[in-house]
Structure formats: structure tokens, C-alpha cells
């Protein structure tokens, strides 16, 4: 593929894999431009393209390399550290990295969606012991609850 195609594919795959990360605040642009691509090449983070006629041709490895760079930028790693982690890695390693970052991105998106709705209330029972309760929780069977709390305290070795 030529640079424009590579750039498009990077943007698309980043979007599909939820790896756009900080793109919203403008710090990590999703589609690498020609200048950025050149810079990554001088750092050895991106292999040199093959030249056909006068055209630079990029392959799957280039895509993988760019996805890995962008995915690590999305979690705020500085470039020196990105180079340190990615330099000289095989296709398989890059692929594994991109996939696990994508999985984590999905998980954290999911938990991010859940966490804000979660409010906790907390009360200190005695010094050293606190009770934390999700907002909206109502006791249904106080006796069973008391038994469980006793068991919990026992497990912690506080009371028998």
C-alpha cells in the first residue's frame, strides 16, 4: 500500500480496536502523516518502505509497527520509552502487544462505563473497622448479613 492507504488503515484499525486513547484531547493523532512516518523511520521504529518506481510501498509489518506506536502513545508513554519497548521486535510480538492493548482498552472502556455510576458510602464502626456500602443497597435479610460479617471478621482473625 502507499502512504495514504497505510495512514487510512492505521486510523481505521485504531478506531476499530478502541485504541484512539487520548485522541480526543489532540495529543495522539490517529493518522500518521508523511513527516511523522519519516521521523519514525529515522528512529528505526518503522522499517524503510520498499520503493517501486518512484513510489514507497508499505506492507503489513509497517501497519503493525504504526499500530503499536500509536497504541503506546495512547497510554501516555513517552517516545523514548516506546522506542525502548518496540525496537527490534518481531511481527508476532508486535501483534500480541497490539491485541492485548486493544483488549485492555475494551476492558477499561467497559469499566470506565461502570465505575462512574458506582458510589460507595462508608462508615467507621470502631477505629480500624469500616463498613463500605454501595449507594442504593438495602438490607433484605439482616440475620444472614450479620452471619456473613461475623464470618468475614473471623477470617480476618479479629473476632471469634
Amino acid at each position, binding site marked *: 500500500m502507499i502512504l495514504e492507504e497505510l495512514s487510512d488503515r492505521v486510523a481505521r484499525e485504531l478506531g476499530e480496536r478502541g485504541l484512539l486513547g487520548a485522541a480526543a484531547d489532540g495529543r495522539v493523532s490517529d493518522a500518521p502523516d508523511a513527516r*511523522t512516518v*519519516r*521521523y519514525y523511520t*529515522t528512529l528505526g521504529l518503522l522499517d524503510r518502505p520498499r520503493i517501486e518506481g518512484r513510489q514507497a510501498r508499505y506492507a503489513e509489518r509497517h501497519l503493525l509497527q504504526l499500530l503499536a506506536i500509536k497504541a503506546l502513545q495512547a497510554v501516555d508513554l513517552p517516545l523514548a520509552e516506546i522506542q525502548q519497548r518496540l*525496537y527490534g521486535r518481531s511481527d508476532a510480538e508486535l501483534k500480541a*502487544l497490539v491485541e492485548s492493548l486493544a483488549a485492555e482498552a475494551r476492558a477499561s472502556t467497559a469499566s470506565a462505563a461502570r465505575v462512574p455510576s458506582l458510589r460507595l458510602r462508608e462508615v467507621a464502626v470502631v477505629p480500624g473497622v469500616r463498613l463500605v456500602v454501595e449507594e442504593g443497597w438495602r438490607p433484605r435479610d439482616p440475620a444472614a448479613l450479620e452471619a456473613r460479617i461475623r464470618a468475614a471478621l473471623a477470617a480476618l482473625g479479629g473476632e471469634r
Partner: protein
Amino acid sequence: MTLAIPMVDIPSGLTRVLGSLKAKEQPLPLESVQLRARVVDRVAEVTVEQKFGNPFREAIEAVYVFPLAGGSAVSRFEMQIGKRVVRGRIEERAEARRQYAQALDQGKRAALLEQERDDVFTVQVGNVTPGDAVVVRLTYSERLPFFEDGRTELRLPLVVAPRYVGGEELPREQAGHGVVPDTTTVPDASRITPPRLVPGFDAKVSLGVEVELFGGFSDLACSQHAVSTSSGPESARVMLSREREPLDRDFVLRWRIAGEQVKSQLLAHGGFALLSVVPPARQGFLGVARDVVFVLDRSGSMQGPKMASAGRACASLLRTLGPRDRFSLQAFDEVVEWMPGGFQQADEGAIERGEKWLRSVEARGGTELDLAMREALQQLRSRGESAGRAPVVVLLTDGQVGDESSVLKRLQAELGDARVFTVGIDTAVNDGFLRRLAALGGGTSTFVEPGARLEEALQSVGREIGTPLVTDLHIDGEVTELAPARIPDLFAGRAAAAFFRLGSRRVKITGRFADGSQFDQELEAREAPLAAIDHLWARARIVDLEDQFRASRSEAVKKEIVALSIRHTVLTRFTAFVVVDDEVVNQGGTRRTVVQPVEMPADWEMTQVMAGGGPAVLSAPFARGPQRAPLKAMGRMPAATAQAGAGKAAMASVPRQLMEKLIGKHSLEKPATVAERERVRLALEAFLGAFVAARGGRGGAEQLEQARIDLLRALGESLAIATAVPLLQAFLRGAAVELVAAVAAGAADAALYARHARLLEAGRDQARVALGEAGAPAGSFWEASI
């Protein structure tokens, strides 16, 4: 039994993921570099040891592009695995490369050492398995320069700086593993451009430097490193004080040898001799009046302290001119700018104007040194009444260019009676090239580090610039195979040296002082333990032969270089060291190539530019300023990637995408038929023939024009070939038209032909690739580097 009570779930994925690719203890193949130097009788013998490991999961081939001192004669290469040492052989370069590749395919560990420039080398170590440790060791020797006041210096370069690469990309497989593609002006750019480390990435290469000096000395100083010294009465040992120094600047050690040793001497060993001639002190020597052209490098790589230092250096040299001298000032990047007014008498007013002009020079752009030298020599040639003033060029630069060969070639052709002096200014200077340039130019070279002690370092340069003290040096005695064949002239305060075979014990040196009187000196040979002397002699011979090869491209000269190289075990551009271990460690030979990234040289400006919310972009040393595409050379990429794409040469060719739209993808990808290829090949040969005939005065404009039209027609019939040869098309439609017109008008001179020949060669090479005649992918790329 414990009961876990889940509390709030904190997302911990990130640490898990990064953990799987965590920063390694040793992130890169190169683990350590150890340099050990012994200096006896002003000859240094240096051993460089590089240790490679493999922090990855599969076998790798490690590639490391590194520098050695410019004049070095590399005479030994070996590989060590555990306690086993395997000695390298020197072979013709293509053969060494073949043996290395074959060993790798067989799964054996092997190493290859090649020379790219006087001071740039590549080592490749293949089939390094995970967790393995392979040490390669090379030895070189070098004669150190020295001065009449006893000053001498040892320079151990540690990083190859980014070099400016101009020209058009070559449409063929790259010759090396670097980050800049091969071009028409630097056909091996990919061999001298290693990737760079991002500042802040600790490559964890442990560096050790140890220098032993023998004989009396004083004033030992290391200009760019902290060192600890232990000295006895007749020797000293100098070591780096810190263990973790980055490899980002030359290690430069300067000292003064004891007074009684500062004299001409003749050292002999095993039939070879090294002659050092120290010029006699001549009180009141003024030399003749001079016309000095100062050429100041203001390219992007000079940005920062270097530019200020270069300006100051130039100003302080201006101050050394006398009222009889004249000067003119030039600063160059991709264009050449002159201080208005041409040559000016070096009076107080003119010097002040010069200083003011120098202060206005800022760094920007590329390094078209060839262009700058051409204009400087032109300026000297075209001065009218010179009143016997000696023509002089003084070049102040870091020398960071990739097309050294074309600059040297120009000098050989156009020097005339001018002399060229070079002042190298950098933390990691291209010393090999600047020495070569000055030697060819009949001048001297001096190296200074940017910073406060500059003027002091340049003190002695001023008086030697211009005219030598003694010329026409000649040795009488049983002297054969002198190298260099022409003994350099003697400049005030600076020793000159030559190597030769010596039959007797005595020689007589004669020469001529500037005032016409006779210089002579008789010397008795002293036996010295200079084991390296035959390597140094061979190296000096080869330097001479390389000059011949550059001018003639003669096969006979090439053969002579190869023969000398192999007979005396000295590395050259035509040969390489190869070492193969017989153990098979990587069955099948599957491996990845990992190129060692290197530091940016110290004091080079790294400007972080936030481009449109994009990542930090290196405002490269060769940037002309923010308004222009910054990565002009260092991050140079095929023009096609830079959308704007077509340079001048491409104007005649239609961009591929547009072509695809116009005629559909299919027809473009249809390969050329055998008949089409044959037609183009014949038409090309005919055109080349017509060009040569016209150049030799044997053919006319009509023949040339007919051949041009025929070739264009042949190309017109094969779209597949035509689109693959934009350089040839551009030549045929542009330059060739101009040439035909000039021939018809009888106005085609040698310079015009020379210029056109270069363009035509590039087009021809591109066509040969397209016609499948290129042979090996990058062919003998090394020939162009000489």
C-alpha cells in the same frame, strides 16, 4: 481459611500489558564497546572490542554502523564465543559478503567487517541466538599528527553523525540497513545512516576507553571526557572516569611530547620506514601575500553552539590576515551566499565588516558542499589581477556529508594552483574526509571542539594558512615505493610524514624554502618496534591509489588496491574481513536483522516540534526552518512519499496514481515483453554511443538528436519500462535537448558534458535496473564511495 472480600475493582490492565513487553535490562544487541590504545613513537595501535547479545526471542543478525579514526589501517578482525577465538580472513568484498551470507544460511555464527568511508565501518554479526554473547575485536593503527611545539592528539570517534544526503532516490534494492535511501549522489546512503536513539532512551552500552602513552610527555588533556590518569616516569595510563558515558562524541586526548623528541626522525622496522619531517623554525617568515576564500558551512547540522563556534573561528582566522592579503567570505547550505564586494584588502575596516557579516549567518538547510567548493574555486580562478597572491580556500565545517567522493573528485579536477585548508568543528567530526580534502588540496586540516577554547586551538592555524615553508620535498637514498608518492609540503609548526621501503640506513631530504633557498636534512634510521608499519605503509599507498581510482575508475588500479589489501591485511573499500564459526547454532538459518540505533552527537540541536497535535518531531539538523519540510535529509524518504513528490527529474513522468486513473491499473502492471526490452536496450546503447561520440568530437548534433528521438520512441512503446525510468525520461526531455542545442551551436564544452554525463549516468543506471540488467541488487556500491 481466608475469605477474600472484594472491594473496589481498580483496573490494572495497563500494568499487565506493559509487563508483557516491559523495558529490558539490555534492550539492544550492542552491550559494550571497549577501546584500548597504545601510543609508541607517535603511532597508535588501537583495539576495539564490541560485545553483542540477543535480548530477543529468535536468532538475530546484529548490524552496527560505527566510526574509526579517519586514517586508520584496520589489520585484524576476530570473533570470540565464550573462550573460543576465530580469526577473520580478508577477502575481496563481494566474496566476503558471499561467504558471510552463506554461513548465516547454514545456521553458523559469522561476522563481517566492511569499510564504507575513511572513517565509517559496518560490522554484522549473524546467528546470535537468544541469550548468546558474541564478541568481535578489530585492531587498527594510525600515525598521529604532531607539531613543532610537541603537541599531538589521539582521536577515538564513537558515533557516526547524521550526514547530509542530496540527490534523487535510486529505484533499486538498498545497499544497506540504514534509514536514508540510496540516491544518485550518495548511492550507498543506506550504509552510513544508522537509526537514532530518542533522547532519553538509555541504550545501556557500557563504554570503556583505556589509552597507554609511552615516552616523555606533558600537558595531557582530554577535551570532551572526564578521565583519570595514572602516570609513571615514561608512561601514562588514561581511563574514562565514568562507566556509563553515552557514545555521542569523539574521545579526544591531546598532549605534548618531550622537547628532545620534537625533531625529524626516521623509524625503521622490517624493511619499511616512517619518515617525519619537522620544519625548521624560520624567524620572520611571512610567506607570500594571499587571496583567501573562507567557506563557512551554515547547514542545519551546524545549528546551536557549532554555528556560533564556526563563526568565531572564521573571525579569528580573519584576524590573522596581514594588510598584503585579500579575502572573501562565503556561507553555504543548499545555496551559496557571498559577502558583497568580492575580494577585499584585509585592512581593519574590511575585517570588521567581515566579522559583522559572519555574525549574521544562521544555520539552516542542507549541505551542498560540492556546490560551495565549486564556487570558491571559481572565485579564485576568475579573480583578475592577483599580483602573485597565493590562492587559498579555508573551509570551516563539520564535514557531515555523504557525497565526499564528488567533492574530492571536483578538487582533483579543479584545484589548479589553489590550496585548501580545512577546519573541522564538531563533537563528532568527519575527520577522515576533512583530512583527505586538505591533503589533496595541498593544505592542512585542524580539528576543534565547539566551545570556549576555540581561539586558543586555532592560534597556530592562522600562520600556516596560505603558504608552506618548504616545498618540493625529495628523499635521496635507497628509497622505493614512497607513500604518499608526493611528500606533503612543510607548513610552519607542523610535521609531515611519509612511508617507504628503505634499503640503507641513511637518507637525505632536500627541498626549497619559500625564498628559493635550499632546505636539506640528513637522517639516520632508528629501529623501532613498529609492528604496524607495513600496514600503515600499505594504507598510505592505498590512499594514493584511491585518488587515482576516483579520477580514472580504472580496473587495473582496483586490482592493485585489492592485491595490496590482501597481501598486507589492510581493510579497504574493495575488501572485507569475514569470520565464520563452524558450529551450527541456528538450524535453518531463520533470523531477523536488528540494526543498532546510535546516539545523536552531543551538542547537536534536537528541537521538539509539536506538529498539528502530532507526536514530537525531530526538527532535523538539516531543516531549513519551520516553514520548510524539516526532515529534508536526515529523515529523507523517497520523494514519492512526500506527496509533493516529483523533483525536477520527475517532471517528465506522470505520477503513477494519475497514470493508473488514466489508463487503468491493468496495462501499467503488464510487464514489458522481451522485444520491448530489447528495443529500449538497443536504443539506450545507441544514445550512449552518440553521447560519447559527440563528447569526443566525433559526432554531431544531428546524430545525437536522432538517437534521442529513437530512445524516446522505444520508451513510448513500453509503458512499463517508461514509468520505471523517470530519471532517463527527464534527461531526454530536458538536459539532452539543451545539450543537442549546445552541440549544434558549437558551444558544448567539457564542463557541460561532465554535468550531462552525471545526469545521463543516473538515468542509464535506472534504465538498466528496469531492464533487469542491474546484476546484483546494489552492485559494487562501494566503488562510488571512494
